[in-house]
Each structure stands twice: as C-alpha cells, then as structure tokens.
C-alpha cells in the first residue's frame, strides 16, 4: 500500500487499518505563495511544528521591492495541534487521571513484588490473595475517573421527580467498571447479572447520546409529567413505565405508578378497583426478588444472597403475578389504558419476550432485561455471548462504539481483542492500567501478557503496552516526571528508555534539572546523574553563568572540562584580580571551597586570593610576620603544579618589594634558587606562542631578576 509505513499485520503497535476521512488543519502562515519548502516535525505532546519557507524572490523584483521587503517575511514556524481529544475528557482532565493513577499503580506493583517473593512456593495462594489487591487498585482508579453516583441529598423529595438527573459518567469509567465486573470481582461473580443491571443504569445515558434509549425516553417523560393533569391517559406514561421496568429501574416504576390519577383523594371513591390494581402491581414490582448482596438506598427489590433462597422466592413471586393476571378484577377496571398498561407490566415481569422487545430500545437493554426476567442466573461466557448476538439480531444497531467492542471482546473471551478494542477506543492509558484487571483472576491472560515474544523484540505484551504509555507521558513537559514509574516496571527495555528520557530533558531550567537528578537518585543511576550535571555545567558556562558552570562540573568531578575552563577563566582574570576590586572574585573563590583536588586547575584561584589578601596587609613596612606569611604562600604558589605559568611573572612582580625587604631576607637560599629557576624557565619560554604577559612593564623580568639576585646574596650571607 503506498504511503503506509508498515503493513498492519506486522506492526508492533496495533493501529486501525480502516481508512478514515482525512482531517484538514488550515495553517495561517501569512507567507506569500508559492512556498519554497515546508518542514514538519513533532513538538511536545500532540503538537506539530510546521516551518514554511518562502521561495526566494526573483532577482528583478529584489530591487523594486526594497520598501516592501521589511514586511515580507522569509518564513514562519506555525504550531498545529492535532486532535482535540474525544471531547469527553480534555487534556487537563487526562493529565489528572495520569497523575492520580501513579500511586495506585506503584502500590500494586510493589505489592506484587513483595507477595510474589513471599509466596514463591505456593502460586495458588498468591492467586487467591491477589484479586483483592487488584480490586482495591480498581476502586482507586474508578474514584479517579468520576465521582460515584450518590443518593439524592435533598431532604424533601418531590414526588414528581422520578428520574434523578446525575452527572453523566464518562465512557472511560463505564468501560473500566465493565472490566472490573468481569475480571476482578470474584466475590460477586454469582451476582453478575445484577451487577450488569447496575452497570447499564450508568451506561444508558451515554447510550442515549447517540441512539434512542430508555434514558432519553424517561428524560422526556419527566419534562412532561410536571404539566399533565390526567397522566394515565397518556400512552407515553405507560410506555415509560414498561421501559423502566424492563431494565430493572424499579424505583422509577413505583414512583411513576404512584402518580396514577386513581391515587388522588377525590377520585378514590369511584376508582377503587383500578387503584387497587395499580397498587398491587406497584407492590409486586417493589418486592421483586433479586439475587445480590444488597440494594443501594432508594432502590427497590428483595435481596437473596444464595441461589436456593432466591429460586424459592422467585417462584413464589411469579405465582403472585400469575394469580393477579388471572384475577377477575381486570373486568371491573373501566380505564382501558390502565388495564392494558398494567397487564403489559405483568407480562414483562413474567418474562414475555415479545413485551420485553417492544419495551426496550437498544439491544443492550433487551440483553439486560433477559437477565432480569428470563434467566436471572449467571451463565458461562459462551452463553452470554450467544445471547448478546441474539439480542443484536432482534434490535440491530448501526452504531458500534468502542464500549460495545470492549463488551463483545470480553464476552468472546479473547484477551487480545479486549486490549485492542481498549487501545482503539480509550488509548494507551487504558490499556496500560486495564491489563492489571485482565490478569487478576485469569491465568490464560496472565500467561499471554507475560510471554516474551520474538516479534516484539523479546519483550512481553505487558511491557510493550507499558512502554507505549510511558512514551506518551514522556512526550509532554508536564507528565514526563511520572513516566519513570512505568518504565521502572519494565524489566527489559525500561531502564534503557529511562536513561534516554533523563538525558533528553533540557538544562535551561535548573529546577527541572534538579528534579531530573532526584529521579536519578531514586533509581540509583549515579553515572547518569553525573552526566546530567556535566551537561548542565557546560550549558551554564556557555551561557555566561561561569560560577554555576564551574560548580556543577566540580560536583560532577569533571577534571578534564574544569582544566579547560580554568584556562579560559584565567584569560579573563587578567589584572582584574590584582586590582583592589577582587570582591568580584570573592564569591566564586568561596564557592570553589578550600578542599584540594575538587576543582581541577581552579584550586589556584583560592591560593591566589589568599596570597593577594596577605599582600595587602604587608604594605606597612613593619609587618614582618605578614610579610613572612605572604612569602610563604608565594613559594607555595610557585611550587604548585596547578599555578599556570602565565601567572609566574605577575606573581613575582607583585612581590618585588618583599624580595627587596629591608633587614633580614624573607627567602632562604633554596627558595630563592627555586624562584630563579622558574624565572629562567620563563625567559626561555618567552618565545613560546601561548606566552602572554599582563600589561607588565617591559623591564619587569629584569626587575624581578635583580631583586632575586639581591635576595640571594643576602640569604647566602645570612646562612653562612
């Protein structure tokens, strides 16, 4: 296929081979056409940098358009943001989810490590324990994806308020919940049908956005009932009730039934039978046996935890319905709509497939109604899958959203399909985090995801999906800091990519660099942190922040670069340090510290400063002690290999008055000989190209030599 990087069959990262409509992003570059060249490159996140260059104007126009050329720009770089997300979750929310899932993920990984170490011998006990941890993790993530549905908090309940309008959950959360139901929660696996009923109650409002669904039907009804007087004459009223019943929203059904006109005090006398029938149905609805641990407050039904108890209650309940169905009171009920509506409800409760089909809108609703009224017991995935297909045939749906794909994948029992659907519909975050759910109780999935694959370069699928997610995180300046958590959980490629990530961070903000170093410390990457410090040091040095540059390189123990830098630094010292204003250098010298061997050639600065300081004190001719000390540090400086040769002459020249000291000589014979030999070396090197003297008087060398000779004479006399 032309223009395609790789065949989808061979690609490492699954991508959809479906050809979608191309998206056009208009670029306002403001450059005169024709464009000479366009460069496209990735910026951070989903930003694209597009550089547009103008064709160079023809020679003839160049002269004519001189005035114009100032406004005429040669090129421009434009940022293009690709995709605005799916609209449901914006970038800030997406980042919030990414941040929030880090502690949960890290906690689960550390638990896995400690548990697997403890129970290496008994993997079965590990399994039995493990799903509870995953459930805890799943709950933490679920809280992150949206606030849980809370019962109405208002004190006075409006009887006409049948449907609570709630904050709509995101489809991401709904998909997560679905996986939790099927893969993690072992405890409630016996109550799977009822969990699906609850799940649909959340999901139906999302379904209603694109297709006709019971939720939208009830929202319309809710708007209507506030204004209608005789509600039971309206077919929509009965339609709404039967639909709500079909998907098990019993509280809504009972609330709607109680709005029936026969409950009104003035009507009670002449519609007694009718009212009795309505109330009987309402009671039957609210006492429907349900196989589950409990119902949330405000919801109706009687709970049975075990199958035998439930079956007994179920049969009894159905018996009551059949009895009411055959009752003679129906004949006495004069209101046709009520009679028909109520009997329809009884048929739904008895599990009449025809009534269920007409009362539901979407196949998913029909599917759920099966679990409520036809087969209220858990069945195998195969059975659930074929039932789903049957429902789809009865109510074909044009839309196949990502969620449905995930749902069918789960029922199909195919882990790879589930992951692919998750990836397609919800992106890398979902896959990286949902893998934990898939593996919680399913051994096959566990093996499948942990198996090292040749076609993935020897890594497992688990690692692959984590790496993909980590790459997404790394590409954004706000989320790169959390990528190491995921990279660290990848045993094969993680560490290598972590190193790349850390190297890649720019050095221009020292806070970022320090945060980078902190990550190195956490993962014990000493050599990386040393490199990062060197990079930062060179960056600072290049940008004129010499002190910082030196300090960072010093802390990184980079002798080679420090020696290089020292040469450049000495160049700019020139005479400035010998002036009175070496306050300037004071700070740097303090920063270098006095420890030997940490600053490369820069140790010299420290000694030089001390020498200069004591030289200042000697100006008074009587300060013999100070003079002696100064001479001592002079000799030390001249002996030290770190003193650059170019400073020898200025040092000696600065201390000429010490060499010509009145009274006893300050230097002994051997010291004087040393200085003389240095001087000799210097005069020989004067022809050397890198020799430079700092604005010293031309006779400086001679003056020093004379002073040294004088001193030598005196010293010899003194010592003999």
């Amino acid at each position: 296929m032309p223009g395609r990087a790789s065949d989808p069959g061979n690609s490492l990262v699954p991508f959809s081979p479906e050809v979608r409509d191309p998206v056009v992003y208009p670029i306002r570059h403001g450059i005169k056409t024709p464009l000479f060249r366009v460069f496209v490159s990735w910026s951070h996140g989903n930003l694209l940098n597009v550089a547009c260059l103008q064709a160079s104007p023809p020679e003839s126009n160049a002269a004519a358009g001189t005035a114009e050329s100032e406004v005429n720009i040669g090129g421009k770089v434009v940022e293009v943001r690709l995709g605005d997300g799916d609209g449901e979750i914006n970038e800030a929310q997406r980042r919030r989810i990414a941040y929030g899932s880090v502690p949960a993920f890290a906690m689960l990984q550390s638990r896995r490590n400690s548990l697997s170490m403890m129970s290496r011998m008994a993997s079965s006990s590990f399994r039995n324990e493990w799903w509870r941890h995953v459930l805890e993790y799943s709950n933490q993530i679920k809280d992150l994806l949206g606030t849980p549905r809370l019962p109405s908090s208002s004190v006075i309940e409006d009887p006409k308020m049948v449907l609570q309008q709630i904050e709509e959950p995101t489809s991401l959360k709904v998909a997560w919940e679905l996986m939790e139901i099927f893969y993690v929660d072992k405890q409630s696996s016996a109550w799977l049908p009822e969990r699906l009923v609850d799940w649909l109650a959340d999901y139906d409002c999302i379904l209603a956005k694109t297709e006709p669904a019971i939720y939208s039907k009830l929202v319309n009804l809710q708007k209507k009932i506030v204004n209608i007087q005789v509600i039971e004459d309206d077919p929509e009223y009965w339609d709404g009730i039967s639909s709500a019943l079909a998907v098990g929203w019993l509280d809504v059904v009972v609330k709607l039934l109680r709005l029936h006109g026969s409950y009104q005090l003035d009507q009670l006398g002449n519609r007694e039978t009718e009212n009795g029938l309505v109330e009987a149905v309402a009671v039957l609805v609210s006492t429907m046996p349900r196989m589950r641990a409990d119902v949330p407050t405000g919801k109706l039904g009687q709970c049975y935890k075990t199958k035998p108890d439930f079956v007994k209650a179920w049969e009894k309940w159905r018996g009551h319905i059949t009895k009411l169905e055959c009752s003679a009171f129906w004949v006495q009920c004069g209101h046709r709509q009520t009679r028909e509506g109520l009997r329809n409800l009884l048929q739904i409760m008895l599990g009449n497939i025809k009534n269920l089909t007409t009362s539901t809108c979407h196949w998913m609703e029909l599917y759920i109604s099966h679990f409520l009224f036809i087969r209220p017991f858990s069945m195998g995935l195969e059975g659930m899958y074929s039932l789903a297909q049957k429902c789809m045939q009865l109510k074909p749906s044009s839309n196949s959203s990502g969620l449905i794909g995930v749902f069918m994948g789960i029922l199909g029992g195919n882990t790879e399909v589930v992951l692919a659907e998750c990836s397609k519909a919800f992106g890398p975050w979902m896959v990286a985090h949902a893998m934990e759910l898939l593996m919680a109780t399913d051994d096959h999935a566990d093996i499948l995801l942990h198996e090292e694959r040749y076609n993935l370069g020897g890594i497992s699928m688990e690692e692959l999906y984590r790496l993909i997610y980590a790459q997404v995180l790394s590409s954004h300046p706000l989320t790169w800091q959390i990528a190491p958590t995921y990279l660290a959980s990848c045993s094969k490629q993680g560490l290598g990519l972590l190193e790349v990530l850390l190297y890649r961070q720019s050095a221009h903000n020292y806070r970022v660099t320090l945060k980078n170093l902190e990550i190195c410390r956490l993962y014990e990457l000493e050599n990386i942190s040393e490199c990062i410090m060197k990079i930062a040091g060179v960056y600072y040095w290049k940008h004129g922040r010499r002190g910082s540059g030196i300090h960072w390189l010093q802390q990184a123990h980079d002798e080679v670069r420090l020696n290089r830098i020292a040469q450049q630094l000495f160049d700019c010292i020139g005479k400035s340090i010998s002036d009175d204003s070496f306050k300037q250098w004071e700070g740097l010298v303090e920063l270098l510290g006095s420890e030997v061997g940490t600053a490369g050639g820069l140790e010299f600065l420290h000694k030089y400063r001390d020498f200069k300081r004591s030289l200042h004190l000697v100006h008074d001719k009587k300060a013999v002690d100070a003079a002696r000390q100064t001479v001592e540090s002079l000799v030390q400086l001249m002996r030290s290999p770190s003193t650059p040769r170019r400073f020898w002459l200025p040092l000696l020249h600065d201390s000429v008055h010490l060499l010509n000291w009145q009274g006893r000589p300050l230097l002994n014979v051997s010291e004087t000989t040393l200085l003389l030999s240095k001087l000799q070396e210097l005069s020989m090197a004067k022809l050397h190209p890198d020799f430079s003297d700092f604005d010293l008087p031309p006779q400086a060398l001679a003056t020093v030599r004379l002073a040294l000779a004088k001193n030598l004479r005196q010293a010899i006399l003194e010592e003999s």
Partner: protein
Amino acid sequence: MAIAGDANLRCFPQPNPVDAVRWLPTVSSLRRFAAVAVHDPDSSSSAIEVHALNPGPNLLLRSSHAIPSRISALRFSPTPQKPLLAAAATSAGSLHLLSIDPLEGSIDSELSVGDIGFSTGAVADVDGQAEGREWVSVGEDGRVNLVVVGDGRLEWRRVFDSKGLVEYSAVRWASPAEFATGGLGFGLQWWDQRKPGGAVAHFKGNWARGNTVGMVHSIDIHPSRKHICVAGASSGTVFAWDLRWQHRPLLLSGVSTGDTVQPASESEVWEVRYDSHIQPSSVGTGPTRILPVMMCSEDGILAVLQQGEEPVELLAEPCAINGFDIDPQNPSDVICALEWEMIGILPRSKETSTAS
C-alpha cells in the same frame, strides 16, 4: 517520625501547573484570598490569579492578570494594607509589581521593570520591605538589584553584579539595611547596604555528598532574630546560620559527618518558613534557640522542624510540594503548590500547636 496524616489536606486541581502560592495578608478576617502563579505550557502564557477561599472549602477565581513570562517567585509586602503590593519575578528577567485590593481580591494595576540592564537572566527571588516600597531582587546572572516604587514607575539601582561568577537563588530582608542571599554550595551571603562593594559575610556548607549541587532554594529570617537566617537546600538540608557564630552553622535537617540530625527528606527543600503556629517547646527556649521551621520538599514532604527534636511530618504526598505559605493571620492554615497541577490547603488543629 511522627505522622499526622494527610486526611485533612484539601486538594484543588487546577487546569495548569502552579508555580507559587501565597496567602494575601488580609485586612479583614472575613475574606480570605490566595494568590497563585500559574503557567500554561501549551500557550506559553503565565498569570497571577487571585482566588477567594470560601467555607466548604472551595476556591473561586476572583481575578487574573497576565504576566509575559513564567513566574519564578511571588512575594507580598508583609504589612496588611490597602492596596496590597505583590512582586512577581520572572524567568525572562523582569519584575512586576501588582497592587491588589485586599477586600475584593482584584488586581488593579501593574508596574514593571525588565530592561536588559536590570537583568540578563532569570530573576530567581525577590523580597519586599514591610510597606512594599523597596524590593531586593537576585538573579541567575549574579545581579543584586534594589527596586524602589517611584512616582508611577519602578526605579532600580544595582547593588552588586558578579558578572556571572556567582549566582543567587534566594533573598530575604533582615533589616532596612541588611539582607541575606543564598546560592550554590549551600552558600549564604550577608549584605549591608551601608557597606557597598560586595557581601559582608560568606558561608559555604560542606554537606555535599554524592551528586548534589547543594543549592539554597529559600531563606527565612525571623523579625525577632535578625541575625539568624534559616535556609532550605539540596539533599533535605535545612540549616540555620547565625552571624555571631559564622563558622558554626546549625543543621536542622540533613546529613553531615559527625552530626546525627535526622533528615525530614532526602531531596531538594524548595521552601522554608518560620512556623508561627507551633509554640516552641519550653525546654531551652532562649535567644539562641532556633524557632520552629516549616519546610517542603521534592519528595512530597511538608514537615515542621525543631532544634534537637524529630521532624513532625504534616504531609507525605506522592508528588513534589514546590512551595507553600503559612497564613500570617491564621497561622494554622497552610497552602501549598503541588507538582501535579494542584493547590492544597491544610488546616491544622489547635492541639498540634504545642509540640511535644
């Protein structure tokens, strides 16, 4: 280590990263505001926002004022007055002085200085005198500037220019004439405007171990003890430097050879503040004792340190705490800027005010 738990922390997610948070020094006890420096990396825009803190609690945006580049430091003049003055330093080397109405939380006007002579690199920190007429700023370019609010504009003069040989990352006034700065190598400098030409005293700590640059990120000086500055730096180091004993720094947290001071954290200490909420324990109170200090760190620790005692951990968050502020009027309330684009508010109960 005593752990108070983080159950009380209220988090307010923001749509963008939070660079700095400050309480407004309020005039009235009924209205409480917080100023927040935010940055949007997608549009490369920055702003100072004022949020009202309502009981609930919730944060409500009252006003926002765009600043041309990323904010590196935000400070208020300490005196509650009308209008309040706040200075924001930026990474592009400019300084912005905002006047904020303390009753409405509105940002009314701005004065700024940002010419190339003022600064060639990021301004790292700024601090104001009590009334906010005079500010001192330090920068990565090694310049120390004094900024004075003139007639409708800001006037500035250079105190010192190290020409890039030394750079400063923190500054704090000690008295109308003196201030302290901090920088690399656990370094502190003491300046006296009456003695121009450079710092009058230097200090360099030698606690560096492993790969650390030992940068001082924040300094605080207590008005009642102007000769002592506490500093927060790398490797969980918090220390006090007393001008009277310049060669004997006191380590409050961190690791050094010979000293056994338990570190409250092992990473960068981004901010330190004297904690006026905690009454210093009765033992050994005196002018030499260091008052309680609060610190926050890169590894998510918010803790109170007392000389000779174990640190009291107030928060241990999964992400970095980049800065915090203690409400000067209600010192029990702490506001902090969390790395994960959140503002946290931590109310402390009265019981914790007397440390054991």
